[in-house]
């Protein structure tokens, strides 16, 4: 049984069809990549899956056998679905530790305060944020450290599925390399990952399956190497085949 089953999901804003009958499945344990040019509907897809700030107009989203498309955002999170944003949004005026602790506290019921603290510390260790930074305000961190904090916040939730929205945006090349290692480490914990990324090399190095969106529709879906060679994908990214050459 797939962990996530997205069936014919559509979302429109007025006359603009941001998502048009999008369907795909994510198997447990895999890293599933989603690519597409700007405005293709990638982030809208993440919004509809998490229900924050909006769900789909039509279609069904089944997470671990549960139909989630009518559930409230916090209920979806408590089922084990975590998400990071393209912009490094955390709780700026909370400390690094408070940011992670709040995830560990409210994402799952029946965890003792000691367990919650332990989960928070472990999550910070997973992403490599030094313990000395725990008392600093999130707003004081560098862009890369804030991305790490966002990942730690998600890891502290002990999610079954993690949605990563352009984790490499705004990072330098060495930081991107570190991010790739970090995502592999999180995947190694048994977390299934759905990954949006603009940097194709980033997606290629991580994904087992790749889906390409264009103008809200599924343009291609399958093995990343064959997808990347698909002329339709090249054209969607670069305009014309000639330009790609």
């Amino acid at each position, binding site marked *: 049984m797939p962990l996530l089953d997205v069936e014919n999901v559509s979302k429109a804003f007025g006359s603009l069809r941001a998502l048009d009958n999008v369907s795909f499945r994510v198997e447990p344990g895999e890293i599933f990549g989603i690519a597409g040019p700007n405005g293709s509907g990638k982030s809208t897809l993440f919004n509809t899956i998490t229900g924050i700030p909006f769900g789909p107009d039509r279609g069904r989203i089944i997470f671990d056998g549960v139909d989630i498309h009518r559930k*409230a955002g916090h209920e979806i*999170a408590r089922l084990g679905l975590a998400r990071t944003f393209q912009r490094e949004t955390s709780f*700026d005026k909370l400390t690094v530790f408070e940011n992670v602790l*709040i*995830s560990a506290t409210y994402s799952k019921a029946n965890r003792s305060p000691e367990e919650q603290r332990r989960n928070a510390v472990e999550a910070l260790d997973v992403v490599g944020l030094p313990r000395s930074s725990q008392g600093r305000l999130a707003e004081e961190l560098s862009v890369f450290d804030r991305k790490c904090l966002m990942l730690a*916040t998600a890891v502290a939730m002990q999610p079954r599925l993690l949605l990563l929205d352009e984790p490499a945006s705004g990072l330098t090349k060495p930081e991107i390399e570190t991010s790739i290692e970090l995502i592999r480490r999180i995947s190694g914990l048994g977390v299934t990952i759905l990954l949006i990324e603009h940097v194709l090399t980033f997606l290629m190095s991580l994904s087992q399956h790749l889906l390409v969106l264009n103008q809200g529709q599924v343009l291609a879906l399958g093995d990343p190497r064959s997808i990347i060679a698909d002329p339709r994908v090249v054209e969607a990214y670069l305009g014309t085949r000639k330009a790609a050459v």
Partner: protein
Amino acid sequence: MMDAASQILFGGLFQGSLYAMMAVGLALIWTTIGVFNFSHGVMMMLGAYIAWQLNAWSIPYFIVLPLAMIIMAGAGWLLQASVVRPMIGRPNIVLVVVITTLAAASLIENGALEIWGPRSKQLPTLIAGNTEIFGIGVSLHQIAIIVITPIILLALWLFLNRTRLGLALRAVAQNEDASLLVGLNVTALYGLAFAIAAALAALAGIFMGGYRFMSPVMGADPLLKALIVVVFGGLSNISGPIFAAYLIGFFEAICSYYFGLYWTPALLFAVLILMLMVRPEGLFGSRARGLA
């Protein structure tokens, strides 16, 4: 000279304590939800009337205080669920909630008029009697307000900064979407913010009802004062308005002593306007909201 200093010190502390108690609930709601609750004044009135009613039923006063606060916490939650929650996520929510809470205020005020009538009432003092401090006569009720207010504010600070629930409220105040994503029930937390604010408003009403006559319209002036305090202190957190409340209390005490009672509101508004021209975000505010 000593007499003047004593009067200003005592007057400043007393007015500052009252203003802090009036404003902190309003600030809590603004920083958490980003709306102004124009029912805050009538919640003070309703809290005072409920305390009066409980006292009229011969319930001991030390039970009346917490009981009135608990009842008002429920009323605050109900207010949020009925006139604020349905508006969350809609365009122009700040203006819409101004209208809906004003409508609720009118309903509650007229309801109180129907139930308790227009005749003025007064609550018993927290502590009966008077005393003399540094040569000036003061009531023990006023001293109780000066002492209790910082304790309540400290308890609120500890709740917000030392408990998981307080942490959740601070998180919601900063980023609603991120709060939902980590599993926070934002709707329930909004209800909690309103419940706490209403309980604090009730206490402010009870403080007022012990030294001046109560009427169903008694919430209008405290609401205006609370708004001034919140705008003056800054809309970004709740500590700014608390400091501002004491500053304004002392400012009023000084103005009243040297220029008279009638000039004081005009001078206060002049300072407020000047301050907003220099620091639109408020004296202790920043541009981002947060419960700190």
